[in-house]
C-alpha cells in the first residue's frame, strides 16, 4: 500500500508551489499593466490613452472629492486616463513608494506630505515640475506665493502643491458665551488662551485640549518667527542640527504644561481624531486642528453649538511670524516614459485650475492654491454659508514670508516629529522640564540628521 499515489504527491507539490507563486503574484501583476501602458508611447500616441497612476492619501469624504476631480479630468481628456489609488496615510504611502523605487511597480504621480519633500528630492527618483513649467511657459504667478515658497528649493519648484492647510484654533461659541467671554473675539496669544481656558473649565467640560502632534509644535515655532533647524531651516544648506531646544520651544511647552497642570487643558494623546471628537461632544471648548478638518468639525457640531475659528495663538501679540503651509504636493516619478510624465503634468495643471481648486476647497477645507479660485461663485457662496473658512485664508495671507514660515526641510522629518512628540509627552507628564526634554530631543534629532547626511550622496 502506498501512502501517496504519484498523482496526489504531484498535486501536493504543485499546490505548495502555487502558494509560493501566489505570494509573489500580487507584486508581479502591476508590472504587466505598466508595460502595457508604456507600450503605446512607442507605437502611436493617439490610439491608446496614456495611463497615469496617481497614488494619493485622501480617504473618506476628502477621498471622494479627489475621485470626483479625477473623473472630471478623465471625461475632459480622451487621450489620458488617470487612475487614482488610495495608498493609505501619507507615511504608509511614502513607505510603499520607498519599497517600489528601483522597480517599475510604482506610480507615475504621487501625493507626498510636505515633510517628505527633502526625501523626495534626495531620492533622485523624480522629475522636478519646474522642467514642465519651463517647457510649457506655465504661469506660476497666479499661484499663492506662500504656498509656492514652501515647495521651492534652490529657486526650483520640485513638486506641485495640491492640498494645503494650516492649523487654526477651533472654539465653542456657546461655551464662550456661557463663560462670559466674547464669542466673536477668539483668544490670540498664549496668555489669552490660558485665561480663556481657565474660565471655560467647569465640571464635565475642560477649557481645551491640543493633540500631541509634532506639526503643531513646528507651527508654533514659525508663529514666533523661530527656525527649527540650522542653516536657514535647512533651506540655505542641508541642515546639520535641530534648534528644538531654543526659547521658542521652551516658552511654548511651559505654557502648554501650565494649562495641563491647572487642569484647564486635557491631555488626550497624540490623535487629532480624539480631540476633535471630544470637541464635538462638548467635553472641551477649544482645540487646535487643521483647516482640512473644518468641514467635518462644523458638521459634527451642527445643532449642538456654534463653531468659531481663530488664528493659531501667538506667544506674544507683537511677535512677527506666521504659519507654515501644511498639506501635500504631487511629484512626478522619473522612471516613467516621457509621454506618461507629460500626461501626469496635464493632470497636475488641471488640479491647479481655479475651477478644480474651488471645488476642492469647498468640499474639503483645504484652501485653494490659486488666488483666482476665490472669484468662483461657489467659493463666494460657501464663504457666506461657512464664514469660518475665511480664517484659514486670512491667516495664510497675513503670514510674512521668511525662512521660518517657509518651513524646515530635513530628510528625517517623520522621525523628528516622533521625537518631538515624545518630548512633549515627557513634559506634560512631569518627567522632564521643558528645556531638558527639548534639548534631549534636539540632540537625538541632530544625530539622526548626521546619520542621514552620511548615507545620502550629495
Amino acid at each position, binding site marked *: 500500500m*502506498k501512502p501517496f499515489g504519484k498523482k496526489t504527491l504531484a498535486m501536493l507539490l504543485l499546490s505548495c508551489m502555487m502558494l509560493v507563486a501566489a505570494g509573489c503574484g500580487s507584486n508581479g501583476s502591476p508590472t504587466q499593466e505598466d508595460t502595457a501602458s508604456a507600450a503605446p508611447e512607442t507605437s502611436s500616441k493617439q490610439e491608446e490613452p496614456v495611463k497615469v497612476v496617481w497614488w494619493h492619501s485622501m480617504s473618506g469624504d476628502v477621498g471622494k472629492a479627489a475621485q470626483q476631480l479625477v473623473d472630471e479630468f478623465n471625461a475632459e481628456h480622451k487621450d489620458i486616463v488617470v487612475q487614482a489609488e488610495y495608498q493609505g496615510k501619507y507615511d504608509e504611502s511614502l513607505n510603499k513608494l520607498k519599497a517600489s523605487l528601483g522597480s517599475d511597480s510604482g506610480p507615475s504621480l504621487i501625493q507626498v506630505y510636505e515633510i517628505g519633500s527633502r526625501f523626495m528630492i534626495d531620492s533622485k527618483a523624480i522629475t522636478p515640475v519646474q522642467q514642465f513649467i519651463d517647457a510649457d511657459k506655465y504661469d506660476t504667478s497666479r499661484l499663492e506665493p506662500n504656498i509656492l515658497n514652501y515647495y521651492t528649493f534652490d529657486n526650483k519648484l520640485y513638486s506641485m502643491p495640491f492640498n494645503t492647510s494650516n492649523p487654526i484654533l477651533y472654539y465653542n461659541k456657546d461655551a464662550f458665551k456661557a463663560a462670559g467671554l466674547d464669542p466673536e473675539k477668539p483668544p490670540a496669544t498664549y496668555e489669552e488662551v490660558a485665561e480663556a481656558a481657565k474660565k471655560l473649565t467647569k465640571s464635565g467640560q475642560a477649557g481645551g485640549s491640543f493633540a500631541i502632534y509634532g506639526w503643531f509644535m513646528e507651527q508654533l515655532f514659525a508663529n514666533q518667527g523661530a527656525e527649527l533647524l540650522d542653516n536657514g531651516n535647512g533651506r540655505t544648506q542641508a541642515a546639520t542640527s535641530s534648534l528644538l531646544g531654543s526659547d521658542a520651544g521652551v516658552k511654548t511647552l511651559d505654557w502648554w504644561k501650565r494649562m495641563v497642570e491647572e487642569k484647564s487643558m486635557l491631555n488626550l494623546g497624540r490623535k487629532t481624531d480624539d480631540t476633535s471628537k471630544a470637541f464635538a461632544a462638548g467635553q472641551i471648548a477649544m482645540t487646535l486642528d487643521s483647516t482640512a478638518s473644518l468641514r467635518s468639525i462644523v458638521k459634527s457640531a451642527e445643532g449642538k453649538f456654534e463653531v468659531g475659528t481663530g488664528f493659531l495663538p501667538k506667544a506674544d501679540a507683537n511677535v512677527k511670524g506666521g504659519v507654515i503651509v501644511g498639506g501635500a504636493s504631487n511629484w512626478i516619478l522619473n522612471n516613467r516614459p516621457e509621454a506618461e510624465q507629460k500626461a501626469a503634468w496635464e493632470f497636475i495643471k488641471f488640479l491647479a485650475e481655479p475651477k478644480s481648486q474651488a471645488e476642492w476647497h469647498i468640499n474639503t477645507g483645504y484652501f485653494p492654491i490659486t488666488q483666482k479660485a476665490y472669484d468662483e461663485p461657489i467659493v463666494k457662496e460657501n464663504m457666506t454659508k461657512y464664514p469660518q473658512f475665511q480664517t484659514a485664508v486670512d491667516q495664510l495671507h497675513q503670514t510674512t514670508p521668511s525662512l521660518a514660515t517657509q518651513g524646515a526641510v530635513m530628510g*528625517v522629518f517623520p522621525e523628528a516629529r516622533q521625537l518631538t512628540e*515624545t518630548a512633549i509627552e515627557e513634559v506634560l507628564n512631569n518627567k522632564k522640564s521643558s528645556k531638558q526634554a527639548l534639548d534631549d530631543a534636539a540632540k537625538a534629532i541632530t544625530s539622526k540628521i548626521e546619520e542621514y547626511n*552620511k548615507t545620502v550622496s550629495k
Partner: protein
Amino acid sequence: MEKNISLVSPLPRESSRQEGIASLRTSRWKERALAYFFLAPSLILFGIFLFFPLLKSVYLSMFLTDPQGRVASFAGADNFTNILTSEVFYNSLWITVKFILLTVPTGVVAALLLAAISIPKLRLTKLFQFFFSLPMAVSVGTGSIIWMVLYHPTLSILNYALSLIGISPIAWLTDPKWALLSVALMTVWLNLGFNYIVMLSGMQSVPEDLYESSKIDGSGPFRTFFRITLPLISPSLFFIGVVSIISAFQSFAQINILTKGGPMNSTDVLVYNIYQDAFINYRFGIGSAQALILFVLITLLTIVQFKFGEKKVHYQ
C-alpha cells in the same frame, strides 16, 4: 517508509555479493533522496521565509542603509555597539521584561483558574468552556480595535463603568503610567483563549481514578488541586510558559495599533522598536542587528527554560 522503498527498488533475487552491496548503496541513496523529496515543500517554504531572511539579516546588520533602504556603507560591528551602548535599547529591553512579567504569569494563572472552575461536569459547563476559549477566535487586529474603543480617552466604556462606582476616569493609553498596563491587560485577554484550551485539555487527560482514590483518602479540593492536578498538568504548564514568553517577546500588533510605542516610549517594546527602525525610518542595518540580538536573547531564555524548567515537569 520501508514499504515505499521496496516499491521503488526491489532487490534482485539472484546477484553476487558485490552487486548486492552496490544496489544496497543505491537503495540507501534513493531512500535519502526520497526523504528530501518529501521534505522539499517545507524546506522550500522555510528557506524562502525563514532561512533566507535570517541570512539577509546577518548581512544587513553589518551595513548602514540609505533612506530608501539600500545598502550604503559597511559598518562592521558599529550597529551592534551602537545598540548595546544606547539608552533606548535598554529602555526597550526593560519594558519588554516588564511586559513579560505582566502578561505571562497573569495569563497562565488566569487560564489555570478558569480551567479549574470549568472542569467539573455541571450544567452549562460546555457553555462556559465555549465562552472562556472565545478570545482565541479573535485576531490581534480585531481585538486591538475593540480595546481601542474601550480605552478611548473621552468615549471610553470602561471609564463610564468606573464613573458609576465613583472612580474618576483613567487615561488608559495616554498616561505613561497606565499605557503598558492597559496593553498588558488586553494581551492577557487575547491569549486567554489559547492558554485556557491547553490547560483544559491537560486537566481532562488526568485519569479519573486518581481523583477518586484521593477522595477516598480524604483529600480536600485544594489539596487535590495542588498535589494531583498541578503536577500532572506540568507538561501543559511548561509548554504554555515557554510559548507565552516567546509570544510576549514578539508582541507587536496590539502595540502598533493601540499606542505606537508611546506615550513617552512607555510601551516601546523591542519588536516595536525594531519595526520603527527598519520599516518606518528605513534603517535596516540597525533594525537587523537588533533583531539578531532579540533572536539570541529568546534562544538563550528558551534553553535556560528547558535546562531548569523541564526537570520539574512530570510526564505520565
